[in-house]
């Protein structure tokens, strides 16, 4: 047997409908058929039986196969079955040559996987139309496969893009959560608890607080309409703008009435400039000295303000959202905010959580919890509210962004004794007796505040160790102004803090105590300091060393 054309495989060979594999054991028949096929314009590759055909197909792909049925080594039907049983042969179009008038043979050939048949001896015209039909089918199948492949590629690309989008959104959500103030004490008597959950990964809610120099606390909450990236970006921008504005006013000590700040935002952020996005906001200021909550509310849900006795303040008037109308005006109002009062601030997402019957949670439910649980701390109260709200909604993700701030002012009898702040000064380059005198004064001061004797002596010794360093080991700048060492003593019910500012050249060396033996000459002072000071830190700022020492006051 001869292989007429030794085909070299290339990409386009994989799909060439003008190439045909002809399989026949009879050399005469191969010559006859081969001539006919060449006349019809085909490039012909020959094999003498099924086995040789398979060997060729291992290396090369053919779209068209013309095969005899009866052959010695492997017949046409076996060749067909083998081809169809393995995908690596592709799916060539197989025309089987069968003996004349054998109906049964024809059926078994088709069953074996042949696509068409030709009765022997094949006639050129019939051969032409049968092969042309095969070529049409193969081309059609090829184009469908190609389209499918393209579709798959597009789907894969889309999936990758979506995955990236989701990752980016997740990151943005994380950033947004980072911006949410943590549960904390805003002053010794104001406890803040927060909750933040977005509807669709990233949302338009923001909140924050700023403390003024007079210990007033400014709080705000924003809800930009819609959710998603645009709302979130505007919300970020607004939060920055508000923090900056408030920071500026506080630095200049010229805090304007709250409604003027909101008015300014209304001018700066008209919705026409921001794809029609407007926002609701609440800006409030808690003044513990004046016992008031002043606030400006712009389209935002009314705050829930509860007195220690459990009376809910009724707030009914609202005003336009910010950015919606140029002419909108806003006003600052004031409510009593006495010790024991609570303030709950929420975007509408919380009240709008619905149950299976589509009935909204509403304000009353939240107000009732606040009333019932008002003796608890803010964090616990908010946990109870969260639990209740998500049980009501019976789902993890709310339909709208939910952001909540709960601020609780400690009731009078609960309050820590007023912070007592007392400065003490020692000269730069102190002597032993300067230290001694200062320690005496600090001792007397703390004694008058009824500090426990043992704590007092620990404080005295530990402070002495630090201050003695200034006398003994510290290098003082030669040409420095004679700035005194300043010790500010802050005493509350639970701790006593010393903030010490001094101008020595370098930070006095402070490291964890070494293993210490009673007889050793040095290291004792440091050992005492490290053992008896509950918290110690030191930082360099503006040519000064700032020490902060804290002792537990109980």
């Amino acid at each position, binding site marked *: 047997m001869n292989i007429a054309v030794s085909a070299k495989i290339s990409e386009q060979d994989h799909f060439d409908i003008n190439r045909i594999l002809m399989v026949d054991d009879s050399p005469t028949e191969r010559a006859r058929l081969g001539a006919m096929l060449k006349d019809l314009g085909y490039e012909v590759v020959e094999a003498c039986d099924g086995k040789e055909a398979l060997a060729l197909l291992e290396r090369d792909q053919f779209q068209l196969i013309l095969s005899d049925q009866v052959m010695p080594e492997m017949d046409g039907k076996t060749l067909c079955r083998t081809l169809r049983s393995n995908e690596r042969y592709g799916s060539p179009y197989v025309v089987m040559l069968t003996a004349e008038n054998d109906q049964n043979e024809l059926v078994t050939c088709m069953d074996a996987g042949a696509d068409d048949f030709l009765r022997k001896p094949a006639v050129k015209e019939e051969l032409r139309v049968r092969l042309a039909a095969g070529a049409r089918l193969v081309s059609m199948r090829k184009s469908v496969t190609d389209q499918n492949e393209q579709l798959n590629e597009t789907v894969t690309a889309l999936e990758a893009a979506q995955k990236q989008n989701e990752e980016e959104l997740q990151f943005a959500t994380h950033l947004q959560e980072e911006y949410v103030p943590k549960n904390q004490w805003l002053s010794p008597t104001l406890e803040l608890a927060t909750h933040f959950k977005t509807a669709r990964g990233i949302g338009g809610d923001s909140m924050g607080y700023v403390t003024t120099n007079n210990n007033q606390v400014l709080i705000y909450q924003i809800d930009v309409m819609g959710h998603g990236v645009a709302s979130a970006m505007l919300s970020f921008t607004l939060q920055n703008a508000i923090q900056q504005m408030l920071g500026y006013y506080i630095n200049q000590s010229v805090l304007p009435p709250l409604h003027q700040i909101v008015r300014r935002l209304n001018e700066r952020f008209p919705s026409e400039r921001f794809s029609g996005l407007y926002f609701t906001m609440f800006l409030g200021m808690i003044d513990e000295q004046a016992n008031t909550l002043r606030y400006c509310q712009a389209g935002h849900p009314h705050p829930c303000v509860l007195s220690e006795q459990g009376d809910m303040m009724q707030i009914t008037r609202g005003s336009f959202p910010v950015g919606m109308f140029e002419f909108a005006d806003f006003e600052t109002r004031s409510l009593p905010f006495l010790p024991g009062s609570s303030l709950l601030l929420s975007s509408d997402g919380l009240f709008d959580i619905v149950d299976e019957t589509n009935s909204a949670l509403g304000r009353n439910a939240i107000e009732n919890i606040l009333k019932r649980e008002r003796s608890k701390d803010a964090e616990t109260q908010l946990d109870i509210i969260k639990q209740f709200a998500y049980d009501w909604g019976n789902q993890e993700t709310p339909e709208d962004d939910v952001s909540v701030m709960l601020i609780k002012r400690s009731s009078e009898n609960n309050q820590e004794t007023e912070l007592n702040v007392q400065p003490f000064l020692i000269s730069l380059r102190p002597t032993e007796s300067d*230290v001694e005198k200062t320690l005496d004064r600090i001792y007397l001061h703390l004694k008058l505040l009824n500090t426990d004797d043992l704590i007092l002596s620990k404080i005295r010794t530990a402070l002495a160790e630090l201050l003695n360093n200034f006398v003994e080991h510290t290098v003082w700048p030669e040409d420095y102004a004679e700035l005194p060492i300043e010790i500010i003593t802050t005493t509350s019910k639970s701790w006593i803090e010393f903030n010490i500012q001094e101008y020595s050249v370098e930070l006095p060396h402070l490291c964890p105590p070494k293993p210490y033996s*009673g007889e050793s000459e040095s290291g*004792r*002072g440091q050992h005492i300091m490290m053992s008896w000071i509950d918290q110690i830190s030191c930082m360099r700022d503006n040519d000064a060393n700032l020490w902060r020492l804290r002792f537990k006051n109980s």
Partner: protein
Amino acid sequence: MSFTVSSYDSANVVHMPEKLTMANANSVKQQLTEMIDEGKTNLVIDLAGMSFTDSSGLAVLVAVYKNIQKLGGSAVILSPQPAVQSLLELTRLQELFEIYQDPNAAIERVSKAA
């Protein structure tokens, strides 16, 4: 502010000042060293009146201990107040000195050693 001494036969009781800090520690240390050098090596260090000390005060006690070790003799501590007691414990000086609450027992202890 310095210390006073009461003598009982071979024992000397050193009544430490109310405060022993960096401001007076050096002079106290010097005087005590001189005393020990003069042969008064059986000491009861009475801390009953001492309300404060710091690491420089502890350094005085360590110096006393070392000098007495060198010359042969003994020193004990009498009646430290709670704050000073906890400082002695913190810095493990109670391992160097026996601590007594009863003056007579303390005097007897250092007299015996003589």
